[in-house]
C-alpha cells in the first residue's frame, strides 16, 4: 500500500502500517524487557516522524485541495503562498517539503530520529534483515523519491535534505566503528547508507538514490542474515569481541559475509560500487556548497564504512578464537 498508493493518504496508511509491523516484530520475544523498551522507543520516534508527515500531507491538501499524487505534481508549479517571517521568505511549498522530510527522517532513522534503529536490533535477525535493512527504513527514501516533482520546487528544502543525509552518513559511520555488538554495527551501517540515499535525493538525483536503495537492500539483508546465522551458532552471543576464528568453522557464512561487506564498501564490480561511487561522483560534480559538503562527508564515510566492515569481519572470523569452545554449536 505504501508503494502502490497513488495518493498520499494511502501512502500514509501504508507508512503507519509498516511502523506498526516494525513495532510488533521488534518485541517478538516479548518477555525480554530490553525488547519491549526498544519497541516502545521505536513507535513514538516513528510517530515523531509522522508528526512531520501528517501536517505535510495536510499542507498539500490545503494548497492543492487534493491528495492525489498526479494532481499534486501537475499543479506544483503554480505560484503558491509565501509569507515573510524572521527576515526570511518562507514559501508554503518549502514548508511542506521540509515537513515531508521530517517524516522521512523519522522513518529512515536519520540524525534526529536515529535512536530507535540500534535498539531495534532486539528483534530477531530476519526481522532486522527485512524490515530494518530493506523495506521499512527505505520507506522514507521512497516517499521522497515519489514526491520528487514536488521536491524540485523549493531549493531550500533540497539543501536541507542534502545536509541531513550527509551528516547522518558521517555520524552514523563514526558511531559504527566503535560498536561491539555485531548487529549494532550493521544497524549503524544501515543508518549511514540511508544517509547516502537521502543526500543523493537532495542533489536531485532521485533515480540514483533508488538504485542505491535496491542494491543496499540486497547486500544489507545478506549481512543481517549471515550475522543471524553467526549469532545463532554462537548460542545468541552477539558481542564481537567474544567471537573469533570462525572462518574455518563456518566457511559458507564467512564467504557470504565477506561478499556483503565488500559490496557495502563499494568494492569494484560488486553492486555497491556502481551505486555508491555514482553517488559520490555526482556529489563531487555538483558545484554547490551542499554538494561539496556531501562529497567530503560521503568520502570520509566510505573510509569509516570500510573500517567497520573489516573490523566486523576480522573480529568475527579471522582473529584467533576469543570465545569458549562450548559456545560454538554446529
Amino acid at each position, binding site marked *: 500500500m505504501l508503494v502502490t498508493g497513488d495518493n498520499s*493518504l494511502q501512502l*500514509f*496508511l501504508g*507508512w*503507519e*502500517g509498516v511502523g*506498526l509491523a516494525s*513495532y*510488533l516484530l521488534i*518485541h517478538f520475544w*516479548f*518477555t525480554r*524487557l530490553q*525488547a*519491549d*523498551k526498544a*519497541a*516502545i522507543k521505536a*513507535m*513514538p520516534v516513528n*510517530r*515523531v516522524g*509522522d*508528526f512531520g508527515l*501528517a*501536517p505535510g500531507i*495536510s*499542507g498539500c*491538501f*490545503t494548497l492543492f*485541495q487534493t491528495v492525489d499524487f498526479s494532481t499534486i505534481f501537475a499543479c506544483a508549479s503554480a505560484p503558491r*503562498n509565501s509569507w515573510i517571517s524572521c527576515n526570511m521568505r518562507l514559501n508554503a511549498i518549502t514548508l511542506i517539503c521540509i515537513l515531508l522530510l521530517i517524516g522521512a527522517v523519522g522513518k529512515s532513522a536519520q540524525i534526529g530520529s536515529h535512536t530507535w534503529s540500534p535498539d531495534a536490533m532486539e528483534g530477531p535477525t530476519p526481522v532486522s534483515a527485512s524490515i530494518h535493512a530493506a523495506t521499512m527504513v527505505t520507506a522514507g527514501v521512497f516517499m521522497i523519491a515519489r514526491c520528487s516533482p514536488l521536491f524540485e520546487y523549493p531549493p531550500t528544502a533540497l539543501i536541507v535534505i542534502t545536509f541531513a543525509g550527509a551528516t547522518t552518513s558521517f555520524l552514523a559511520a563514526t558511531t559504527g566503528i566503535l560498536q561491539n555488538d555485531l548487529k549494532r554495527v550493521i544497524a549503524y551501517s544501515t543508518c549511514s547508507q540511508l544517509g547516502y540515499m537521502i543526500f543523493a535525493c537532495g542533489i536531485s538525483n532521485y533515480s540514483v538514490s533508488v538504485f542505491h536503495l535496491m542494491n543496499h537492500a540486497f547486500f544489507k539483508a545478506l549481512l543481517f542474515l549471515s550475522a543471524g546465522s553467526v549469532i545463532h551458532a554462537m548460542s545468541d552471543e552477539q558481542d564481537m569481541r567474544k567471537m573469533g576464528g570462525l572462518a574455518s568453522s563456518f566457511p559458507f557464512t564467512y564467504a557470504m559475509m565477506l561478499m556483503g561487506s565488500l559490496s557495502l564498501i563499494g568494492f569494484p564490480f560488486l553492486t555497491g560500487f556502481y551505486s555508491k561511487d555514482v553517488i559520490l561522483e555526482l556529489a563531487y560534480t555538483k558545484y554547490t556548497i551542499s554538494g561539496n559538503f556531501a562529497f567530503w562527508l560521503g568520502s570520509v564515510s566510505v573510509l569509516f564504512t570500510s573500517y567497520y566492515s573489516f573490523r566486523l569481519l576480522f573480529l568475527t572470523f579471522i582473529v584467533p578464537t576469543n570465545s569458549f569452545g562450548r559456545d560454538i554449536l554446529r
Partner: protein
Amino acid sequence: MNYFPWLTIVAVLPIFGGSLIFFLPHKGNKVIRLYTLFICIIELLLTTYAFYYYFQLDDPLMQLTEDYKWIDFFDFYWRLGIDGLSIGPILLTGFITTLATLAAWPVTRDSRLFHFLMLAMYSGQIGLFSSRDLLLFFIMWELELIPVYLLISVWGGKKRLYSATKFILYTAGSSVFLLLGVLGIGLYASNEPTLNFETSANQSYPVALEIIFYIGFLIAFAVKSPIIPFHTWLPDTHGEAHYSTCMLLAGILLKMGAYGLVRINMEFLPRAHSIFAPWLMIVGTIQIIYAASASPGQRNLKKRIAYSSVSHMGFIIIGIGSLSDMGLNGAFLQIISHGFIGAALFFLAGTSYDRIRLVYLDEMGGMAVPVPKIFTTFSILSMASLALPGMSGFVAELIVFFGIITSQNFFLIQKILITFVMAIGTILTPIYSLSMLRQMFYGYKFFNAPNSYFFDSGPRELFISISIFLPVIGIGLYPDFVFSLSVDKVETLISNFFL
C-alpha cells in the same frame, strides 16, 4: 408516511421491560441476565428495522416524528424525532448497551437492580438522542444521573462513594445551567413556554442573549462531554465504576454532551457559536495535549484509559468548533468511533481486572503468556485508540484535521498552529497506549499477584471484543457507513453559519 409510533416504543420499551424485572422469579441470576439481554436485543432490532425502512438518508429534516400532548398545563409535549445527527448515536447506544449487558454477566450481587438500571439508562439515552422538545431533553438528561450514581456506588471499586458523589454533584450542578438555558429559550418572547426544537431553532435571539444562553448550555455540556477544566469527575468515575458501567459512560454518556453541543448550541444559537468557535478549538487542542500528557502518569489502569477518553473527546470539540463541513463530519465520526473504542478498552481493562484483581499498573506484568487472547484484543484496540490507519479513529482524526485546514473562517496562521498542536497530540497518544500495554503484558509475571492462575478470554468476551472491533475496522476502511448518515444534516447545519 407511517404513523406508527416507532420512536416512542423504542424509547419506552427498555424501562418498561426493566420494571418487569422485579416480577421475575427468584430462581437466580441467569434468568435476569437473559431477560435483560433479550430486551436489549429486541430493542436493537426494532431500532434497526425502524431506521432501515422508514428513514430517508437524504432528508435533512426530522423524521419519524411524534407529537403528543403530555402535560397540558404548561404546554409540555412528548416530541420525538430523529435526523441524520441523532441516528448514529441512537444506533451506537443500542449496540453498546447490548454489549455492556453481555459484559455484565459476572455481576452477581443485586443483579436485578443492576439490570434495571442498565435498561433505565438505555431508555434515557434513546430518549435524549431522539427528543425534539427542550424540556424532554432536560428530563432525559437528568434521568441519566441517578442510575449512574447507583451503579457506581454499589458496584464500583474501592473509592466508589467518593467518585459517585463527585459525579452526581458535578453533573447535577451543571444541569442547573442546562435548566436555566432551557427555560430561558422556552420563555423567550412569550408567556407560555414554547419548547419545541423547531420553533426555538428558527427563533432569532438578540446577540447578547444568545451569548448568555450559549454560556449556560456550554457549562452543562462541558461537564458532560468533558471539556477541560470541567473534566475532573471523569477519571474518578471511570476509575471506580464497574466496567460495564464504564462502557456505557465512555461510550455513550460522553457523547451526549457532544451531541448537545451540536444540537442546541449550533442549531439554536448560531451567532454565539460563531463567536465562541475559535475558543472551542483552542480548548479542544489544549484538551488533547493535556489529557495525553496526564495519561502516562496514571498508575491506575482505568484512569489511564479515562484520560485517553478525555483526549479523544478533544477532537470532537475541535471538529465542532471548526465551523466547516468536514470538521463537523469528522466530529460526528469521532463520536461513533470513540464510542466503540472507548467501550472496548474499558471492557478489556475490566475483564483483565476481573482476573488479576490489580488496578495499579506497576504491579501487573507479564500477562501476555497466560492470556494471549486478551493480549491480542487489547493490543489491537490500543492501536485503534492511537488512530492507526485502517481503523475508524484515524479517519475521524484525519477528517477533523482536514476540516480545520479547509475552514474558511479562520486565518492561516491560527490554523497552522492548531494543526501543529494536534499533531503533537498524535505523538503523545502512542506513548501512553504502548506503555500501558508494556506494563500489563510484557516481561515476566510477578508472582505476588493474588491469583496467579487464571483463564484466558472465554467465548463471551471474545464475542464482545470482536463485535466492537468489526465496526471499528469497517468504518476505518469504508467511512461512508457513518458519513452517509450525517452528511446532509451537517450541510444544513453549517449553511446557517455563512451569514
